[in-house]
């Protein structure tokens, strides 16, 4: 029997629990991006937007708990000396940036809520890349996200270097 008396174990539990909470809240976002491709009626699009508005704070709150508890674990477990821990953090940040940029472009395009930059303006080329993905964006983001999460999980479980 392994006692739950050590602080490290409690924080590790919190880390995994908050990650599960994040997947649940972020899953709502992912479902909506796929659903947006099938919708055209304004009232149905608005209802789906409501899902994203509701899950946003939960998604952000839980990912913050995951990151902070992960950083605490790095210090407590002396993992900060190992490359796998930093690489995991780097992958998480990188995938976050990809999601925000391409997810944002997709939502702006489908919902018509964002003004697209004109040629020569800042972000023009990035937005053009995003628009080229078009309706394939949800699949692109899901596959990229799952590969990144799988890599992070592998690094966390096997601590290879």
């Amino acid at each position: 029997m392994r006692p739950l008396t050590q602080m490290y174990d409690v924080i590790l539990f919190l880390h995994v629990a908050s990650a599960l909470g994040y997947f649940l809240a972020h899953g709502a976002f992912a479902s909506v991006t796929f659903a947006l491709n099938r919708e055209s009626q304004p009232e149905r699009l608005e209802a789906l937007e409501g899902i994203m508005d509701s899950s946003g704070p939960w998604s952000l709150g839980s990912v913050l708990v995951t990151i902070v508890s992960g950083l605490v674990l790095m210090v407590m477990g002396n993992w900060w000396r190992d490359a796998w821990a930093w690489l995991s953090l780097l992958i998480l940040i990188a995938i976050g940036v990809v999601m925000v940029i391409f997810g944002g472009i997709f939502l702006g395009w489908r919902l018509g809520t964002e003004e697209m930059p004109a040629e020569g303006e800042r972000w023009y080329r990035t937005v053009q890349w995003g628009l080229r993905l078009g309706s394939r964006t949800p699949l692109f983001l899901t596959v990229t996200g799952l590969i990144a999460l799988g890599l992070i999980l592998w690094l966390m479980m096997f601590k290879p270097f």
Partner: protein
Amino acid sequence: MYSWLVFLHVLGVMGFMLAHGGTTVMTFQIQKERDPDRMRALLDLSGYSWPAFALSFLLLLVSGIIAGFMGRWWSQGWIWTSLAILLGMSIYMGWSSRAHYHKLRKALGMRYFEGSKDHPPIKAAGEEEILAVQATLRPLPMAVLGFGGTLVILWLMMFKPF
């Protein structure tokens, strides 16, 4: 090989939570809606994620059962308790979904499940009846039980207390 099975098991759990997210948020969001078209959009959203939901549930269940044999865990109480909680939660969620959300689907003129059969859409009910069915929805107990049960399973898996 055992570690890779546990890896697959955790990956299945991650996929399951991601696939279940849309439905979870929908159960809360639909309570706020008054427009039948918007309700239909939310209920459709829940239906779209069903294949990913079923596939990831199967992955986590099968990999968990095999990992239980490979790690010789089946002689311990925690793994049986985890399985019992998972099955108990699934049965309750399935029942609750049919008792409330499929009743709403029927009232909204959508495809619905009743008894053990899938039924084609029938004529939508009047607004008053739709709102009456909507008023019976109780998403909070389901969410507390669902996430609370998941946390208990996580605790049993991580600390193997008995």
